[in-house]
């Protein structure tokens, strides 16, 4: 069975500080990977997707970057946090592409002060 793990579970960070969020998928080789951001009570905004190691496509610019250093790992980061970065960050994977079921992780809650 496939499992998806996100870390950390929650973070409180200062404006202007760096950030790194991680996501690992076990039990599935070569998954399509996705990062989403969700404001409190809001919709899910797709940020990045990756179909293979080393390749990441940006969907929306939010002063964030993503990398896929290994087949089962997806990293979201920024060097300088903004207040608007607060929210719920969700990693997801699918077998193929956008027309396939997206399996979401438990999420990381971020508060920027």
């Amino acid at each position, binding site marked *: 069975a496939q499992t998806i793990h996100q870390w950390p579970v929650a973070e409180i960070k200062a404006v202007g500080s760096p950030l790194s969020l991680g996501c690992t998928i076990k039990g599935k080789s070569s998954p399509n990977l996705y990062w989403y951001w969700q404001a409190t009570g809001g919709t899910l905004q*797709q940020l990045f997707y990756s179909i293979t190691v080393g390749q990441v*496509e940006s969907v929306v610019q939010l002063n964030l970057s993503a990398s896929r250093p290994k087949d089962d790992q997806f990293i979201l980061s920024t060097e300088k946090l903004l207040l608007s970065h607060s929210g719920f960050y969700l990693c997801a994977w699918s077998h193929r592409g956008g027309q396939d*079921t997206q399996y979401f992780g438990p999420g990381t809650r971020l508060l920027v002060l």
Partner: protein
Amino acid sequence: QQQVRQSPQSLTVWEGETAILNCSYENSAFDYFPWYQQFPGEGPALLIAIRSVSDKKEDGGFTIFFNKREKNLSLHIKDSQPGDSATYFCAAASSNTDKVVFGTGTRLQVSP
């Protein structure tokens, strides 16, 4: 610009009633429409999905009705239970991209 809209924003029904959640979209290229269920503090999970070649999809007590000409669809939750209380997102994707657009969401409350 919100490409996928949902209504109502929130909905309260009594236990045993049918809840009807609506979704509309703008992009004619969308041809895959999944519905996701999200409980507070958790990631969403796929509930049911339909492709644009169909006008109806049923799975247990969940039914999607799809109108391609009008660019709208609805999710019917039959015999609603308090455990169905959650936020429901309609999403849309097209066959030539990995991008998925989520709707604005409907918060459903089922009262016992």
